[in-house]
């Protein structure tokens, strides 16, 4: 098992798609290779960071400004007259 193969099968590992034997070999390498251990940790962190940066749980609804409602209805009228 090499660092290149660890990086290549990382998603399969994180998604629990490896067989028991494959997972054992994978985890043995991670225990012995600090670079791979840090790579996996920072790979997972980057996914979480991206999600946290773009998804604000406090903002699941934004009141539409009146000008936008009017603009949408005007644009709709232009392409689909009543």
């Amino acid at each position, binding site marked *: 098992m090499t660092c290149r193969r660890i990086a290549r099968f990382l998603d399969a590992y994180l998604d629990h798609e490896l067989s028991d034997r494959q997972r054992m070999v994978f985890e043995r390498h991670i225990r012995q290779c600090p670079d791979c251990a840090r790579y996996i940790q920072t790979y997972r962190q980057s*996914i979480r960071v991206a999600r946290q940066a773009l998804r604000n749980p406090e903002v699941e609804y934004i009141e539409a400004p009146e000008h936008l409602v009017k603009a949408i209805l005007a644009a709709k009228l232009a392409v689909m007259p009543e």
Partner: protein
Amino acid sequence: MTMLTTPSAPSSSEQDLIERVQRNDPAACERFVRCYSGRMLAVAGRYFPCESDRDDAVQDAFLSAFRSIGAFRADSGVSTWLHRITINACLMKLRARKSRPESSIRELLPSFDHAGHHTHPVASWGGDAFDRVATEETRAHVRRCIEDLPNTYRSVLLLRDIEELDTHETARLLGISATAVKTRLHRARQALRTLLEPHFVGT
């Protein structure tokens, strides 16, 4: 996300509204916009911090919805359908922006020597990486890094990791195979990690 995404049939009041919109009833069309724009703006706001870009994307999404509402089937919820349309409008708007060439993804992937070891030592990120995402400055930086990904890789990352659509739904929306989704997602995540690293590497 809290937007209703369960694929259940529309309620009778939703069904009634849709039928009236399909008949081009002006009052129903306005109610449709007022009823669903709030959640669509929240989705678009994830992709576009600039309000005018966000509003444009939602306007595009509504026009797309009005054009295709005749084909809307009652086997999935209106919110789920509009969520997909909104994501598509956002992705199209992002695609129109200048971005890195697709081939540039290679320089963002990790490199290995002939024996398969990492070419460069891998550093830890600071333990407060997540606390730092709380600042607007860091959020803006992360958003810029995502925007900096080549188009096809950015699209897959947004759909899988941000919108949390599954592989098959993502493949369907993008018109690519499930295998292509998995390959592109992996490369997108690796590339994003590379782009984020200078900002988060530990102190």
